[in-house]
């Protein structure tokens, strides 16, 4: 019987701010972080509400004592480092340096946020210029390896890229690495920065809303993009107890399944989502009746919410579940969504308060259930958190009170 895997620290940055306190304040007071972007240069800046972090690259660099300007650090890396710095400050670097550690990171487009501006220089005849510093920053692992270098740690490193489920996958992998005895602890999560590539990419799918998104609402049109980074420190319960760490939550279940239905669309009746949630519950040795709150993937796209909504209805056949999407707060932070929302799920459980589904007004025709719209005091012992990505990659995580 393997030990319980627990979460003992977090680091988080998003449009809502930095750190658990700032995020909880926004969530509990229904304060969205969506606004028109000021740092992302795009001709669509006044068209699309985005969950942009309220700091420029120079401001992020200054927080990290890094040089400003064209310093070779992409925004993706800077966001990751700031979130990590919070976690490291709370945990102490010594622990992460001295004992076997895994760093499981995730993102979708690597340093594209910087590369896209410099790409014409990249492919020109120019041999010199500040763009040279960014030539090896496009891939997903650049932020992972920068984290290791910046904090002078030599962990087992892995970078996952499975679109919107990426950092939920990171958390699952981290847990498995500890359970297999490969490492003692794992820092797991993901990061993604806004880029024109991503904004225009999702816009070409015509599932981006110019207004604030309305998950699970009949009038929903699509998602708002966001950026951020979220990391969780996972370890065996006995190790956490031995060093006197505060246990925030137990990762009691997880699952990763593939919808195998379509390259980008989910199975319409929610078969894929249902399967994932059921398997995560099975792993947790819980039933749907034990789940007090569901933090849904809830992107507010036509397809996701119909599919996930139906899956929730089928899973909670006996009752109406308490569920919501927190994406109207932060935007859809893509690879960071899984870990950011895992942190939100844990905060909800710590505070025993549900998280509001902002902007909801009208029930979907095809559903009987409706999301919770207020931050309400309630008993929360177990939370289910969903992340569903392109390519049918579906992940569900179950967190329980310690």
């Amino acid at each position, binding site marked *: 019987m393997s030990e319980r895997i627990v979460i003992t620290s977090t680091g988080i940055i998003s449009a809502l701010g930095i750190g658990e306190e700032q995020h909880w304040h926004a969530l509990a007071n229904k304060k969205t972080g969506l606004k028109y972007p000021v740092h992302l240069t795009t001709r669509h800046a006044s068209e699309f509400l985005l969950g942009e972090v309220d700091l420029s690259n120079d401001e992020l660099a200054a927080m990290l004592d890094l040089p400003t300007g064209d310093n070779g650090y992409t925004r993706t890396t800077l966001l990751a480092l700031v979130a990590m710095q919070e976690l490291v400050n709370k945990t102490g670097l010594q622990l992460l340096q001295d004992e076997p550690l895994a760093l499981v990171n995730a993102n979708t487009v690597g340093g594209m946020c910087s590369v896209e501006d410099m790409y014409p220089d990249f492919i020109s005849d120019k041999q010199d210029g500040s763009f040279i510093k960014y030539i090896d920053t496009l891939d997903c692992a650049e932020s992972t390896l920068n984290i290791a270098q910046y904090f002078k740690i030599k962990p087992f490193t892995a970078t996952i890229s499975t679109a919107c489920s990426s950092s939920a996958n990171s958390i699952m992998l981290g847990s498995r690495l500890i359970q297999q005895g490969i490492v003692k602890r794992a820092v797991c999560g993901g990061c993604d920065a806004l880029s024109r590539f991503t904004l225009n990419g999702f816009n070409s799918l*015509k*599932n981006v809303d110019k207004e604030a998104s309305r998950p699970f609402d009949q009038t929903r049109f699509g998602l708002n993009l966001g950026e951020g980074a979220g990391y969780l420190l996972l370890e065996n319960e006995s190790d956490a107890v031995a060093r006197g760490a505060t246990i925030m939550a137990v990762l009691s279940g997880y699952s990763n399944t593939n919808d195998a239905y*379509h390259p980008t669309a989910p199975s319409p009746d929610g078969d894929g989502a249902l399967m994932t949630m059921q398997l995560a519950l099975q792993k947790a040795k819980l039933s749907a009746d034990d789940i007090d709150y569901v933090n849904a993937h809830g992107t507010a796209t036509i397809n996701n919410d119909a599919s996930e909504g139906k899956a929730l209805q089928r899973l909670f056949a006996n009752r109406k579940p308490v569920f919501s999407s927190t994406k109207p707060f932060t935007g859809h932070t893509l690879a960071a969504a899984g870990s950011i929302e895992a942190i939100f799920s844990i905060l909800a459980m710590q505070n025993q308060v549900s998280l509001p589904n902002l902007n909801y007004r009208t029930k979907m025709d095809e559903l009987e259930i409706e999301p919770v719209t207020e931050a309400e005091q309630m008993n929360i012992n177990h939370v289910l958190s969903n992340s569903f990505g392109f390519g049918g990659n579906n992940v569900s995580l179950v967190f329980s009170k310690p």
Partner: protein
Amino acid sequence: MEELKNTLKLQIIESLNLEGMKPGDIDDSAPLFGEGLGLDSIDSLELMVLLERNYGIKIEDAREGRKVLESVESMAAYIQEHRTV
């Protein structure tokens, strides 16, 4: 209108990379999605870009777009009414 439909068919074949197909292979009123050519939701987005790039018609809502894209006939009629280039 016939010339528009023929041009449109050529554009559809090119945009969706329907290798080996010729305009004569596409029936004006045959459904483009589901049966017929068996196109899918990604193809419908590609065709909406075709409308925007070639005829200046911008469709914001993918569901509205699908109705326009039912057949070459429906596309041609919509283009005639809404084209800006």
